[in-house]
C-alpha cells in the first residue's frame, strides 16, 4: 500500500523514537566538549571532581521535579503549582522535624500527605470541574502561595544533622541527592514503559477521546499522574529542606522550578501537547541546563547573557524536533 515506506521504515522508526532523546544527549556531549575547551582556553579546569559533583547537585532538585512534570506533560496536562508546593513541603518538613531525628519519619509522611492532597486537588479540578490544567494548577499554586505567605515571612523550622546528609553527602563522585534523582527517574521510566498505567498515560496524552473510547478511565489516569507529579515536587521539597537546614517560603519560586521544569521536559523532546517523549530525554534536558550553568559560572559570564543563551537553546531544540517530525509527516501523502 505504501511501497516506499517499507525499506526505509526501520531507519525512520529509529530516527523518530530515539530522535529527540538522542539529540539532547548529543547536545549534552557537545556542550560538555565546548565548555571544556572554553574553560581550558580561559585557563581553568572543567572536568574537575568539584565541578561534576556541582552539576549533579544543582540538577538533582530540578531533575526530580522535571520527572514529575514529564508524567504530567505526557498525559496531556501540566503542573504550574510545583514551585509553590516545593516551598510548602520544605516548610512542612522542617517544622515537623523541628531539629529532632525522631521527627524525620513523621516529616516524610506529612510531606507525602500534603503532596498527595495537592495532586488530588489538581487532578480533580482538571478532570471533574473541566478547568484547563494551566489555570487549574496556577490557581492551586496561588492558593498555596497565599497560605504560605500568610503563615511565614522567612525561613522556619529546623532540619536535624542526620537529615542534612541527604543534601550534602556523597558516595565517591556521586552525591546522595543525585542517587535520589536517579531512583525517581528509574521509577518513572519503569512505570511508563512496563505498566498499564504508563501505557495509559501515553494514550490519554496522545488523544483523550481515543483513550476513552478504548475503555481507558481517562480521569483516573490524569488524577494519578498529578498525584505522582506532586509527590515528585514533595521529594524535591524534602531535598531542599535538607540543603537549607530549614524550610523557606520562597525556595520553590526562587528556583523557578515551575517553568524551568517544563523547559527541561520540552528540551528533552517530550511533546508539550502530550503523548510523545519520555523520562530519558528529560534527564538529558536537565543535565544540559545544569552543564550550561556550570560553564557560564566558570567563565564568570554575566547572568543576563546566561538567560539569553538558555532561551536560545530551548527554542532551537524544540524547532529541531518540530522539523524532524515534520519531515516524517511530510512523507505521508
Amino acid at each position, binding site marked *: *500500500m505504501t511501497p516506499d515506506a517499507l525499506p526505509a521504515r526501520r531507519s525512520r522508526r529509529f530516527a523518530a523514537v530515539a530522535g529527540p532523546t538522542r539529540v539532547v544527549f548529543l547536545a549534552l556531549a557537545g556542550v560538555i566538549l565546548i565548555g571544556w575547551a572554553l574553560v581550558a582556553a580561559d585557563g581553568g579546569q572543567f572536568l574537575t571532581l568539584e565541578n561534576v559533583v556541582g552539576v549533579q547537585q544543582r540538577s538533582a532538585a530540578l531533575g526530580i521535579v522535571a520527572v514529575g512534570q514529564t508524567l504530567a506533560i505526557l498525559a496531556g496536562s501540566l503542573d504550574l503549582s510545583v514551585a509553590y508546593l516545593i516551598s510548602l513541603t520544605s516548610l512542612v518538613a522542617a517544622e515537623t522535624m523541628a531539629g529532632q531525628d525522631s521527627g524525620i519519619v513523621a516529616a516524610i509522611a506529612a510531606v507525602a500527605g500534603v503532596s498527595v492532597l495537592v495532586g488530588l486537588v489538581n487532578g480533580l479540578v482538571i478532570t471533574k470541574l473541566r478547568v484547563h490544567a494551566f489555570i487549574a494548577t496556577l490557581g492551586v499554586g496561588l492558593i498555596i502561595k497565599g497560605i504560605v505567605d500568610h503563615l511565614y515571612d522567612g525561613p522556619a523550622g529546623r532540619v536535624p544533622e542526620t537529615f542534612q546528609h541527604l543534601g550534602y553527602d556523597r558516595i565517591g563522585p556521586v552525591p546522595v541527592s543525585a542517587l535520589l534523582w536517579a531512583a525517581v527517574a528509574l521509577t518513572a521510566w519503569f512505570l511508563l514503559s512496563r505498566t498499564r498505567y504508563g501505557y495509559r498515560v501515553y*494514550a490519554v496524552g496522545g488523544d483523550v477521546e481515543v483513550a476513552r473510547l478504548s475503555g481507558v478511565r481517562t480521569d483516573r489516569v490524569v488524577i494519578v499522574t498529578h498525584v505522582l507529579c506532586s509527590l515528585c515536587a514533595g521529594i524535591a521539597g524534602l531535598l531542599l529542606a535538607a540543603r537549607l537546614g530549614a524550610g523557606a517560603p520562597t525556595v520553590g519560586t526562587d528556583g523557578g522550578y515551575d517553568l524551568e521544569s517544563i523547559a527541561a521536559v520540552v528540551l528533552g523532546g517530550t511533546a508539550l501537547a502530550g503523548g510523545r517523549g519520555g523520562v530519558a530525554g528529560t534527564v538529558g534536558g536537565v543535565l544540559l541546563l545544569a552543564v550550561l550553568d556550570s560553564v557560564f559560572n566558570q567563565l564568570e559570564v554575566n547572568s543576563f547573557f546566561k538567560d539569553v543563551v538558555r532561551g536560545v537553546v530551548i527554542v532551537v531544540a524544540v524547532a529541531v524536533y518540530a522539523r524532524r517530525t515534520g519531515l516524517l509527516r511530510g512523507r505521508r501523502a
Partner: protein
Amino acid sequence: MIGIGKSFLGVRVLGEVDLVAAAGEVHAVVGENGAGKSTLMKILAGVHPPDEGTIEIDGRGVSFGHPLDAQRAGVAIIHQEFNLLPERSVAENVFLGREPVRRGLVDRPAMDAATARLLGELGEDSFGPRDPVRHLSVAQQQVVEIVKALSLDARIVVMDEPTAALAEHEVDLLHRLVRRLQGRGIAVLYISHRLREVFDLADRVTVLKDGRLVTSAATGELTPDGLVRLMVGRDLGSYFPPRATSAGETRLRVTGGGNDRLRDIDLELRAGEILGLAGLQGSGRSALAKALFGAEPFTRGRMTPVRPRTVREGIAAGIGLVTEDRKAEGLALRQSVRDNALLVARASGRGRRDGVRELLERVRLVPPRQDREVRYLSGGNQQKVVLAKWLTVAPRVLLFDEPTRGVDVGAKAAIHDLMRELAGEGAAVMMISSELPELIGMSDRIVVLREGRISGTLPAGPSEEAVMRLAAGEVAA
C-alpha cells in the same frame, strides 16, 4: 435494540428505533446524514446511554455506562475517524486499555505475538505489530482497527463509513475483510453512503430517516432506486444534473507544469465546463489541485493568467479550492457559520461581507442559521459552508477535491446541482472524486492522472473501465 430513543439538549434525535442483527450477517444501516445512524451506533457502543429502549445481546439485556462495558459485552466500533494513537505502535493500539499483564507488568511479547497472529489471520503482511501507526496508510490503519475488534473477541462489529477514505482498490480489500468477519459468525453493522457497496455486501438493510426507523428488509427485496427513495423520502430522479452544452473561453491554462510530485502537466480549464480529475490514491490528484491553487505551487512550466506561488496569489487570480479534508483544511470548526463563510473574504480583503444570508440560502444550507458553530453541523452542511466561503469572492476557477465524501445522498445532489450552476454562470470547475460513477456522471471531460503525469483525457461519459485502465496502467487492465 428495541425502541431506542435519545434526545440531546431537548432535541429528539432518535425515537422508537428497532434494530435486529443476526450472527454472521452483514447488516447495512443507511440514511441521510442526521438520520441518527451514528447516534444509534454510539448507543450500541456505550458512548451515549439511551433515554429509552433496551439492548439485548444473545438474548440477554445489557446496559452500558461506559464504552468499556460495551467492549466487554462484545461490541466493537470502528469510527469514521479512526481511534488510533499515531505515536504508538500497532500492538499498543490494538491492546489499548487492556494491555496483557504478567506479574503486574505489561507483557509486551505476548501483546506483539497476539497482534502478529491476528494480522496473519487477516492475511496482512505489509506491516508488523511494532510499527508506529503514524507510518501506516489509511487502509492499513483500518486493518489495525479491525484487528483491535478481533482481539476483543467482538461478536458485533460496527463499521461507520469504513470506505469513505479509501481508494477503489483498497475498498475491495476491505470487503474481503468484512467477509472474513462474517465467516467467523460476527454480526457486522455497516454504515455506508455508497449504495453500490450496500448491495454488494449486505444481507439486510435498515433504513433510518429523521431519527426513525423507515424499514428493515433483506437486500434482495430492494432496488437501488427504491432504497434511495426510502432514504430521502422522495424520488431523486436522475442522479446528476444535465451537462453543459458548450464550453466557453479558457480560464486557466498550464503547459509543462511540474513540481516534486507532478510532471509535464498540460491542462486547460474552460468557463462553463466541469473537468473531472481521476486517478488512484497517490497519483497526484490533490497535488495538482494544490499546485493550481498555489498551496503547493508548480516549480516548472507556464500557467496563464498567472502561476500562483502562494495561496494569496491563487486567490487573487480568482482560484478557489474546496479541500479534501474539510475539517482540517476547510473550516475553523469552533467558529460560527458566518465567520467561516467570511474566512476568505476577510483574509484577502476582497469580496462582499454583506449578503451572507443570501449566500447560505444559495448553497442550500438547512437551516441557514449563521450563529451556530460549524462543528455541530452535519458533513453535508459543513461542505456547503466551505462552498459559501468561496462564493463570497466569486472565483473564476473552482477546484473541488472529493466534495461529496461522507456526505449524504440529499446533500450530495444539492452540491452537484450547485457545481453545475456555478459552471453555468461562467466559472471553470475541476472536480476530484474517488467515486467513479459520480465523476463520470458529473464531468464534461475527464483527465486521468497516473504517478504524477496525465495518462489520458476522455470525453464526457466514458465507461468506468476506460478510466480505470488509464489510472492503473496496462498492468491492472
